[in-house]
């Protein structure tokens, strides 16, 4: 007789895995939000004190302080404040902006308005960087020899550069005084090395060198021409005096794209370098392991061997995706400050300079939620990739 094992919503291994993860991230959210609640209340010196403009008389200071404390509910006891904090949060009420540029707009509205700009950087950089980086890394492990080592050291260099410094170098080379011939020459050399290495790695076949030469030369020449023509602005989200609603959509898009290019490239090069160097080591390790050597003895084709090695090498890279996402959000915020891209990072900077603490916390809160959702999605994707987790079976 056949035994039917029913897997209900509660006992199915994947469901169990999901519940565990959801519970974990709920705990994380709870701790993080409690932390957000405690930060301004634990510091010596009230944020309220900082809000009072300098030069206020003593009497005015006291009255203003009492008024502001009443307004923010700081005159109640700590646990009442905590309950209020959660009640407001669940209603989506983060308070009102004090900074001048967002005159008393709800903080939630301001922050949500900035979120798409940050996500427009984070998501493409994370995905494209992951795919290109791992592709380059796997190919670099495969081709071996001098080019492989050159790719490795270039990617190590790219991933270890301080990203904010690299952003400045990008501005220096690509956006400021671009008609300087020395700069264009430097750019040509650096760009040439990167493009040629990239092409040498990913192209295979007998005409590799010819294709690399022609394609690489064209790409670098076009890029330098574009830089010479001043295509990259020094920062901002739109050109000065460019009012988006007065222009047709394609012009708005092009202008946005020009401003988007530099922060995007900066982040992409740094993350790609990290993935590529990691993937090269992992693939080399896999290519050296028993099952590949055995398959080689059996006479498998190289393409097949490569695909086996790649599939096994990519798993540890996937686990790195979580940490990479957390780092990337922080990096994006600082890159936004350098390029004045209109996202959460720039908002946080403006809020820091305007001493609007509730806005700072609002920014952090949204970042936190994005990171948690992102981590959750990565976990689920990992479960789909690795059947051991999905089916709850240990090795």
């Amino acid at each position, binding site marked *: 007789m056949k035994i039917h094992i029913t897997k209900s919503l509660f006992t199915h291994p994947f469901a169990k895995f999901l519940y565990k993860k959801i519970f*974990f*991230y709920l*705990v*994380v959210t709870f*701790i*993080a939000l409690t932390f957000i609640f405690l*930060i*301004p209340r634990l*510091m010596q010196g009230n*944020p309220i004190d900082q809000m009072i403009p300098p030069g206020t008389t003593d009497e005015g200071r006291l009255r203003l302080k009492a008024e502001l404390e009443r307004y923010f509910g700081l005159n109640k006891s700590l646990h009442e404040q905590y309950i209020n904090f959660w009640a407001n949060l669940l209603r989506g009420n983060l308070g009102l902006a004090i900074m001048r540029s967002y005159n008393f707009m709800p903080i939630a509205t301001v922050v949500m308005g900035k979120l798409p700009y940050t996500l427009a950087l984070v998501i493409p950089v994370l995905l494209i960087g992951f795919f290109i980086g791992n592709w380059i890394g796997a190919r670099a492990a495969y081709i071996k020899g001098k080019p492989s080592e050159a790719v490795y050291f270039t990617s*190590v*260099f790219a991933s*270890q*550069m*301080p*990203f*904010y*410094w*690299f952003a*400045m*170098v990008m*501005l*220096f080379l690509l956006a*400021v*005084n671009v008609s*300087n011939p020395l700069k264009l020459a430097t750019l040509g050399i650096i760009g040439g090395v990167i493009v040629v290495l990239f092409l040498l790695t990913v192209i295979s076949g007998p005409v590799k060198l010819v294709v690399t030469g022609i394609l690489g030369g064209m790409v670098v020449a076009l890029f330098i021409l574009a830089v010479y023509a001043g295509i990259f602005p*020094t920062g901002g989200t739109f050109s000065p005096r460019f009012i988006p609603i007065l222009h047709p959509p394609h012009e708005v898009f092009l202008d946005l794209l020009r401003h988007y290019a530099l922060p995007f490239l900066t982040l992409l090069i740094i993350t790609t370098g990290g993935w590529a160097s990691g993937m090269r*080591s992992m693939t*080399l*390790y896999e290519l*050296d392991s028993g099952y590949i050597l055995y398959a080689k003895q059996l006479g498998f084709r190289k393409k097949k061997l490569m695909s086996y090695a790649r599939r096994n090498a990519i798993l540890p890279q996937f686990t790195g995706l*979580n*940490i990479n996402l*957390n*780092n990337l*959000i*922080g*990096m994006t*915020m*600082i890159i936004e*400050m*350098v390029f004045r891209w209109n996202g959460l990072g720039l908002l*946080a*900077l403006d809020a*820091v300079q305007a001493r609007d*603490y509730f806005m*700072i*916390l609002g*920014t*952090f809160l949204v*970042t*936190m939620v994005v*990171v*948690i959702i992102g*981590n959750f999605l990565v976990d689920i994707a990992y479960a789909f990739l690795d059947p051991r987790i999905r089916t709850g079976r240990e090795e």
Partner: protein
Amino acid sequence: MIGAAIVLAIVLFGIIGPMLTRDPLQPNPYRAAEPPSSEFLLGTGDLGEDMFAQLCTGTRNSLIIGAVAGGFATLVAVLVGGLGPYKGGLVDETSNAFTNVVMVFPMLPLLIILAAILGGGKASMFLVAALIGLTSWPWAARCIRSQVLTLKEREFINVARMSGMKDRKIVITEIMPNMLAYIIIVFVVSLSIAVLTEAGLSMIGLGPDPSSNVTLGTMLDFIGTGSTQIALPWDYWWAFIPPGLVLTIFLVGVFIMHSGMDEVFNPRLRSV
């Protein structure tokens, strides 16, 4: 070996350099924004400061901040990541869960908030170092935890336990000597991360007070004093390229050293 040599060279540069150079914060309005010359090896800043002197002192101060923050992070990591798996049971569960929870936090935004609220660009070097240490230990804790876990299952530990050795004695005479090299490497990597983070904070004007401290980050200051924002449009490359290069070389050195050490601790990687 190459990695260690690079790191050592930069540390020596940070120790010896400041003894031989001028006062890095001394302005000289008559010699402002000069390109590199034999008198000023890396030119002068927009107020006429000697950039080479700034680079030397900045390297030293960045390394000091890194060492304090890295040491703090390593200490917390050894306590949280080392004690847990050794004791096992509830201690392990709690410390591991705590590390996992903190790992999810986006640390850089958190650090920006803390630095903005507590320091506001006027902080001392040690406050900045403490904040960085406070936010950078989870990675180190996880490394140390996994190392202790593998070490715990090794035979000589079992033998020691079976022969009736006390827990404390096992930790001191058996585990610590084997962990020491690993802890040092975790410390060096934490140090390099802290140096990188400090420079990032200083660059957005939230690091140590730039009017009295020089670090590699304050040399790159983009938003606080905005020295880089002056340097960029005028092509004063000597003002911001060298500190970034020193940082990059240091970080690459630590990376090479780290991956070299990984091969020692993880012999499966050695054949690569």
